[in-house]
Structures are given as C-alpha cells and as structure tokens.
C-alpha cells in the first residue's frame, strides 16, 4: 500500500488515538448489547462492539455512519443516558461516576445537543428559563442577577444576544433554536459537547452557520466536540478526526481528509461513492446509458 496511513496501526487500536489524556473524554473497549425479543425468539443485537475513542479538548471528532450503525448509542453512553454492557468512559483519564452528585458533576462538563430543535425546547417556557435553569442548578451560589447576566452572555456567545431572553421557542427559527440548544449545553460550563446530527433538521442555508458556531466555540473555548452525522462533507470540513461506523464496529478512522479522500475500508468507499458530488455532474447518466447499451 502506498497510502499515507499504510504504516499506522490497525483502525481500532488505542495507540493510534491521540489527544491529551489530561483533558479528554476517552471511550475504552466499549460494548453495548440490546436484548431483542420477538415472540418466543430472543436474540442479542450488538449495537456497539469494542469502540475506542478519544475526544481531546479543542478537538472535533466526527462519528459517521448510517442509521442503525450504533453512532447514537455511543453518544448516549458518553452522555450517560445509557449504560454500556462493558467497557468504560474516562474523563480526564479517570473513571466516570454512574450515579449521585459525582454524576451531575460529570454532566456539568459533558452536554448534549440534540437533533430536533423543535422537540428539544419546551414550548411553555421562555428562552431565559431554558438557559438560566442549568446555570442555577450547577451554580447554586450565584445570585439572581448574576444568573441573568450569565444567560445573556451565553446568548451573546451563540450570536443571538440578550433580546432573545424573553422570547419563546415558537418565535424562533430552527437555526436560532439550535443556537439556544448550544447555549443551554454551555450553560453549566461544559467542556465537551456531544452533537447528535445537530443540523440535519435545519434548512440548508443555515446549517453551515450553526456548524461554524460550534467550530468557533471549539477553538475559542477549547471545547471538545463529538459530532455525529451521516453527512460526509460536513464531517470532513468540521472535524479533525473521522471515525466510520458500520453495524456497531468502527471500521475506519483517521484524519478527516485521509478518511474522505483516501478511504481504505470498502464500506467507507461505498459511502463516499454514494454521497452526492456535483463534480461528477452527468456521470451517473452516462454510466447508466453505457450499462443499458450493453444489456441491449
């Protein structure tokens, strides 16, 4: 092989993972099985098999794959919304708590941004409520006006501004709501954000804006981001490292450009082939015509 990664270790080995263990989330040997029952038949679905991931501070790691590949399961396990069957999640090199006050300490630092901005904000509450509540919960020492100031500041950081504090979710566009969701994730003081398809439900022209916001925060605040997506193009442009998942296995990993431009695993190659690419304008039509001409 003459590819740039020919000398690197196999895709799932911990040696290849980089990042500063002093400030990182590390997923080590993670497995998740779901027990299935269909009538009298029982079976086990191996949703995640031996996953190793390191998300360093200030880095974006993209997890790409199709529906059912296990990427959201990993996200939910890292966010502690799901318990793994085996394996562990380390924060700054230490084992992470499973319950109690220590768990809420973990949650303060690791927050999620969900896919659907229309479902993830409560329509009854103002934007202020959504952002002040996590500030209040995680910083009980703050006074009321300090909390309000902090909420206004968070909205500034997501480029919305304090004018939005008294609005309600229905008054906001999808992109604005997703910015609120990001502000809410930052509110407790998160150092890591798990973004599960954060832009797939947004209109195309505002997707890049929301991703740019995450990229800005990642750089300016040293935020670590786990970006879960099925879109190879944004994964390439907005992350440092890409991990490709297929049926629970991480089948390929590497720097974003390497994985997309020189895919090694046949599944990554298939994904790459299937992604729309305007540079191949008219190619499919010609291919199909040639195929049909041969058949006749």
């Amino acid at each position, binding site marked *: 092989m003459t590819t740039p990664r020919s000398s690197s270790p196999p895709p799932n080995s911990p040696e290849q993972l980089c990042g500063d263990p002093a400030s990182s989330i590390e997923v080590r040997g993670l497995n998740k099985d779901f027990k299935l029952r269909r009538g009298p038949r029982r079976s086990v679905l191996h949703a995640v098999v031996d996953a190793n991931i390191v998300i360093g501070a200030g880095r974006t790691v993209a997890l790409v794959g199709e529906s059912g590949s296990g990427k959201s399961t990993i996200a939910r396990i890292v966010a502690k919304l799901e318990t793994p069957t085996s394996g562990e999640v380390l924060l700054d090199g230490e084992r992470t708590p499973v319950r109690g006050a220590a768990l809420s300490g973990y949650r303060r630092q690791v927050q999620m941004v969900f896919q659907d901005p229309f479902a993830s904000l409560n329509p009854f509450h103002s934007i202020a409520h959504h952002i002040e509540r996590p500030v209040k919960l995680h910083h009980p020492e703050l006074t009321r006006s300090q909390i309000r100031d902090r909420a206004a500041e968070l909205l500034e950081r997501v480029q919305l501004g304090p004018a939005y504090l008294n609005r309600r979710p229905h008054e906001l566009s999808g992109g604005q709501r997703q910015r609120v969701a990001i502000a809410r994730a930052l509110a407790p003081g998160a150092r890591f954000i798990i973004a599960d398809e954060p832009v797939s439900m947004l209109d195309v*022209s505002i997707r890049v804006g929301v991703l740019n916001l995450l990229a800005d925060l990642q*750089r300016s605040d040293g935020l670590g981001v786990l970006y879960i997506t099925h879109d190879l193009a944004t994964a*390439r*442009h*907005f992350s440092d490292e890409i991990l490709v998942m297929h049926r629970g296995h991480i089948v390929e990993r590497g720097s974003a450009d390497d994985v997309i431009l020189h895919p090694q695993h046949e599944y990554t190659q298939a994904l790459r082939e299937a992604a*729309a690419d305007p540079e191949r304008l008219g190619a499919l039509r010609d291919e199909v015509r040639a195929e049909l001409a041969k058949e006749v």
Partner: protein
Amino acid sequence: MNTPRMSALAPMPPGTPVLSVRDVSITYAIEPPVHAVQNVSLTLHRGEILGLAGESGCGKTTLAYGVNRLLKAPAVMTSGEVTFHDRGANDIDVVGLEGEALRRYRWDKVSMVFQGSMNSLNPVMNVRRQLHDVFTTHRPGMPRAERERRAGDLLQLVGVDPARLSAFPHELSGGMRQRVMIAMALALDPQLMIMDEPTTALDVLVQRGIIRELMRLRERLGFAVIFITHDLPLLIEISDRIAIMREGRIIEEGPAEEIYRRPQQAYTRQLLASFPSLTGERGGFVRGGAT
C-alpha cells in the same frame, strides 16, 4: 420483461416540450395572504430531469401541487396557464380540467411521488391491492390476470422481488417502500413524474440505489421528471436543468452545469456555498476564529 413500453429506448426527439407553465401564481388566501408562487414560467422537455431547488417554504411543493391540480383551499391558483403536451394527442389545458377529465389526467399523464411517501402507502392494504387499485381505477376494462402480471412487472422494474406483492407496508424497509411508491407512479406509463423530496429520509446507500434506478428507468421509459429537493449537490449530479426557487419565484434557471459552474444570482451562489465540497478545497467554510 413485458413492461408496457420497452420501445421507448429509442430516444425522444430532444427539445419537444411535455409541459409548459406560464406565469403561474398561487396564493394561500388567508389573512394576510401568502403569495407562495409568483409568476413562475417553466418549460419541461420530454425525458428531461428538471431539478427544482430551494429552501423550506420557497413554494416548490406548492408549485408541484399546482401543476398536478392538487391544490386545496385556502391555496388558489390566481393566474397562469399550465399546458400538457400529450404524446400523439392534443394539448391539454390543465387549469381548465374538471371532473372526469381531471381524474383521467392525474396519474395517467402526470404521476407524483410525494414527500415522505415512505409513509404514504396504505398500512392496511398489501402491495398487490394498492397496485391493482391503480389499474381498476384507471383501466377499468383490464382483466384481473393482466393486472396481476403488470403489478409483478412493475415491482421487478423497480428492483423489488414480485413475491413482495403480498407484503404489507410495515413488512418492507424504507427503501423498498419508496421503490413501491415509484412502481405505483410508473404504473400508467406517465409522461411526467413529479418527485417531491423522494429520498431525503433515506440512508445514503439506499438513496443512491434508488436514484440509480430512477436514472435507468428514465432512459428506458423516457418520462420526464421534476425532482424537488433542497439537496443541491444531488440535483447538480443528476439533473439536466435546474431551477432555483426563492420566495415563490424562480430566480435562476439553466443547464445543471451552468448553475454549478457559473451561477448568476447571489442567492444561487449562497445556496451552493451552503454545501461544503466533499472532495474540494478544505476549510473554506470554517471562519477563522470567533467573530
């Protein structure tokens, strides 16, 4: 395979129009009125794939519904002409169609694959009954055996095992349901198929399979396609021509290559820029530092 018209492999004479849309405006008569489509003119040629691109709310679905006369109050077509140039027959004034004539026009001449059509199959009827339904409605004289044969052929045409005729929608995967919907849209040999976000909800590999099948069918059967989606890279790859819609108007229209390489309108450039390139220059989309 005895599909109705393998003869269509002979290419259509290029540049013959199949549908002309002139100055169409559609308004939602609510307070205040929403002018969803404004003075849109389009010509679609035989066997051509026209990509209609635009963001949510730009009026692309409303326009498609207008062309197929599917608008329901409060939507009203306030002006314009839609002419269907029937193969080997007289032109049809679509706006003037009423009753029986309208019923015969729909699906027979122009069929539609709806948005979210993965879920638009009837959940309590098996695939066979739904395909037969098309023939019993539009070809009442057709014997049962013929219907059954055609239904099987149609499934085969879209790459679904004809044994699946007995399956109910919930027993099929999303991709298969979408293929069945396309089979249904092809049933009456339409000259135009309108596809509204036909693959948006599907995984990329499944989406690719369906797009490929569509391109093959188009070559074989010669129908024209209006392909509606916000996925501009996909449209550029597969369309012959592209129309960009914004706030009810078509702001730019041209061959796919022109739209991609030499977009004239700022909005078209902005829309193109919303899609990072899969293989091109990296990093142009990421602003340097916080603003």
